[in-house]
């Protein structure tokens, strides 16, 4: 027997990994389909607000699909999920604050004069 022999892998763990493997394949197909749909939808003669909403939903869906399955957050410790959500939340809050700050056309500039 080799001095570097690996411990045997638990059968349940192996079954779980195989199940995840199939999830990854399904997810990859969905990601490709959604990306294709994103490209198609921008050329459809639909109202801009509707297309923008659809694009947002699709990209947020892809984002969380990768985070939850490919990055294992759905299987992993809750603490890691909340750590990432905290970073995401701060990024979104910064974005919202900046958009609000720079929406100066809504500010009554007469007030300053």
């Amino acid at each position, binding site marked *: 027997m080799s001095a570097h022999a690996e411990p045997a892998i638990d059968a349940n*763990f192996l079954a779980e990994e195989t199940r995840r493997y199939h999830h990854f394949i399904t997810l990859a197909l969905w990601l490709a389909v959604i990306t294709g749909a994103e490209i198609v939808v921008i050329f459809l003669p639909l109202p801009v607000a509707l297309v923008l909403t659809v694009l947002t939903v699709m990209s947020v869906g892809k984002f969380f699909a990768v985070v939850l399955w*490919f990055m294992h957050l759905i*299987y992993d410790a809750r603490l890691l999920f909340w*750590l990432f959500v905290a970073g995401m939340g701060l990024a*979104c809050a*910064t974005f919202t604050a900046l958009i609000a700050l720079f929406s100066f056309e809504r500010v009554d500039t007469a007030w300053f004069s």
Partner: protein
Amino acid sequence: MSDSAAAPTSTGIDHKKLIMWLFLASDCMFFGTLISTHLLYRKLYPTGFTDAEGHVRFVQNLFDIELTSFSTFILLMSSFLMALAVSAMHKGQIASFRRNVLGVILFGLIFLGCQVYEFTHFYHKGLTIQNSVFGSTFYVLTGTHGTHVAIGVLWLVLLYFYSFTGKLRGHIGALDVEIAGLYWHFVDIVWIIIFTVVYLVEYLGPNGIWGSAVATITP
């Protein structure tokens, strides 16, 4: 059982993995500010850019949606291969890990090649980092992402060669690969957002979402 339950730490999570998630959370904020800056300046300066001959150019005419879609698809599939590489490592299948990682490296290099081509093309069309606000925010945002991809490729190349030393095995080896995988997937999710908010939104509406087409034809 969670992936981290076997780790002998007070949180039950391996420290390397915890640190990586903290880094990714902070990188989220970093890219959040870059994306916000780009969108704000697109809103404030909706005209595209002025090339070397003094012509105002519309951003939509500059972008090549086919190329960007192709590179997006490549990056998404690289993420899939990375997930398979991590799975193979968890199962102790080192040969499968090497095959998948080679695929990720190849796809990463194709993505970088597309980005170099795109930057060169834009430069020849007159868009530089200095001649417009759009150029500055666009190159900084996509260039920072490209740098992340390049670092990821380098990391995976090192892991690939490290696997031949025989030291990349067991729980620690799988964890090292998983952490590299987290970084790679993060690069992918950032691109998912960039693809939508930088590229796709430019095609919305007859005048572009920022009204830039109207601005370009105004004397």
